[in-house]
């Protein structure tokens, strides 16, 4: 067994640095030793290593990714929750302490795996948080629902919970919604109940030029709809900001946010200042702040009134 592992370690070292290879191999062994996270999880170490060498992200091979106290399921092609997102979502959670008697509503746009609203649901007190997550991808919506169930967060049966029912619930809830946020009718069509206390989003933000240069494990495995900042070729500037314009429009025209609400948007490298001014000028938000990620990069724009 040790000889097999040692051979596979050398195989992994062809695509990873030595330290990462040791750790990734151990994580694979740990997953194989435990219960299978999903039917598509490999059953042999050889198979896992072969997939990794072909460039598949570790998180898809292992089937899960820890995200704060949550263990989230990961399934191609839904965007894998990133460390940067884990960091700022915790920070956001510290800004408010909702209770069952003072509950908060959360709307997460481009929710993907559901990582952001599910983390808030798990960090905040039971019965204090009622979240909706919207995504254009059916895979994402299914996965976010599975993630809610896997982490013991309730999914309301009849769609988004109206605020007058918040107090009847002793658990936090998450409603996954299939929808296109760029379609102006989506707020009504999804049955949302604006205004929200918190609006979060990690929208696709990678400019086309950079997208073409992405590593194989991102470009060939993760959904381009979760990555490409300008989905239409017609966008002139090509700086990957399309979704921030969309979100600004939504804020402006739909009264989506409460007066004392918070908007938290993850941004890509070099986009924070632009996004802050989009929020102020186009979204009508009075104050914006920028948060850095653990690597010192500008990563989040926080907008308030």
């Amino acid at each position: 067994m040790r000889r097999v592992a040692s051979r596979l370690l050398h195989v992994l070292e062809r695509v990873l640095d030595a330290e990462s290879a040791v750790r990734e191999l151990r994580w694979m062994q740990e997953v194989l030793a435990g219960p299978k996270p999903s039917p598509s999880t490999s059953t042999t170490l050889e198979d896992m290593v072969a997939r990794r060498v072909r460039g598949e992200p570790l998180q898809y091979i292992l089937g899960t990714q820890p995200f704060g106290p949550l263990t989230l399921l990961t399934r191609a092609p839904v965007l894998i929750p990133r460390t940067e997102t884990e960091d700022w979502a915790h920070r956001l959670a510290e800004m408010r302490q909702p209770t069952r008697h003072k509950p908060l509503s959360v709307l997460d746009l481009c929710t993907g795996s559901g990582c952001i609203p599910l983390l808030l649901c798990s960090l905040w007190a039971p019965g204090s948080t009622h979240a909706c997550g919207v995504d254009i991808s059916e895979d994402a919506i299914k996965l976010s629902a599975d993630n809610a169930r896997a982490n013991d967060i309730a999914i309301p049966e009849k769609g988004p919970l109206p605020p007058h029912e918040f107090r009847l619930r002793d658990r936090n809830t998450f409603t996954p919604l299939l929808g296109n946020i760029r379609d102006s009718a989506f707020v009504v069509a999804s049955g949302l109940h604006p205004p929200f206390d918190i609006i979060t989003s990690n929208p696709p933000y990678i400019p086309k030029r950079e997208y073409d240069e992405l590593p194989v494990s991102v470009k060939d495995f993760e959904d381009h709809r979760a990555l490409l900042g300008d989905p239409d070729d017609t966008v002139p500037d090509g700086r990957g900001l399309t979704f921030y314009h969309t979100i600004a429009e939504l804020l402006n025209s739909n009264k989506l946010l409460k007066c004392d609400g918070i908007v938290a948007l993850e941004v890509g490298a070099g986009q924070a200042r632009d996004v802050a001014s989009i929020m102020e000028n186009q979204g009508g938000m009075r104050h914006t702040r920028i948060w850095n990620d653990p690597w010192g990069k500008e990563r989040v724009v926080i907008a308030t009134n």
Partner: protein
Amino acid sequence: MSILSRLNLRPHTFSAACRVHKNRTYSTQQHAFTDLDNAPIVQLVRRKLQERSKLQSETSEDRVSAEDVARIKKIKELEQLQHAWEEWTQVAKSLQETTPLLSDSDPAMRALAEEEHASLTQELSAMVETTFPRLLIPASSTAHMSALVELRSGVGGSESSLFLGEIMRMYLRVAGSYGWKASVLSRNETENGGIKDAILEVKGEGAYDILRWESGVHRVQRVPATEANGRVHTSTVSVMVLPTSEDSEPGKDEELFKMSDVRIEVMRARGAGGQHVNKTESAVRLVHDPTGITVSMQDERSQHQNKRRAFQVLRARLMDRKLEEEMAQRRAVRKNLVRSADRSEKVRTYNYAQDRVTDHRLGWSVMNLLSVMEGDALRDILQALEEKHGEEQLEELLTE
């Protein structure tokens, strides 16, 4: 059966406290009682209770002053000892009453008296051996704490890291046998299947107090698997046992460190980061500036979890420092006989050729190395070390 042999049944149970004059022969049972009654610990109990009644007489009736409050607290603390002493006096009185009957003319009465006398004496010696020490030795402030066990390979290169792996498994096994939950928080493996360093978390009531005597240098003497010409090598692994709590309360941390004194560093450059990168880069390093303590953690797949773990280790190391400092202070104030563990001290030798494990503090050898590595004999060693500690604490009390 003489009292002396009865006292010696359990050589590790506070023998210092129950030290009676061993050279004397017991001509009469009366001597037996006198010896027990003169045992240093019984005298200490008397002194403590005299202090207590003095405090009681000093306490004013309305019990309002700050001094009164302090006095009442002390009186309360010695309440159990007072109860035990009342019991002692009762039993001693019965014993005294029985003694004349030992020379009764009626053989049946004599036999009865002898039986009664023996059982009362046994009761008294049990109090000297266990009840009084238990009530006098201050309760451990770390009794409820779990443990982190840090292992580092020392001299001996790859052989040392192979042995580290075996020591690690020994602790995992012994933890299991105590019913504690043990897991590997972090480990650095070597190419040949050894482990350079590791941190174990042992969760359970009393885990720290029982394991703390493991701190120190552990030495292995054997022919390494990698050695072709059969020469015996000596290698070492250093062990450090730190106190840790199940979950930290935010307020509690402030006693140990200020958040602003801790730098949180991430390990490597990540390019654009965010959506551009899906490689797991979860490693974290904490630097506590005032002490220079650095903790790196990279075994978890989430940075948040690594950070949590790293803070747990930092907290444990700072807590360990604090306990050391408190111990040093006490030693400075009064002559402290309780040894502090010198972490560079050689505490144990594992000799494979002789199938022997020697604990250098106990001066014991277990002639069955496997039973130590499997955990059973290690438990005996740990218990003996704990008892030794109890004796030292008691000796300190008695010399006060």
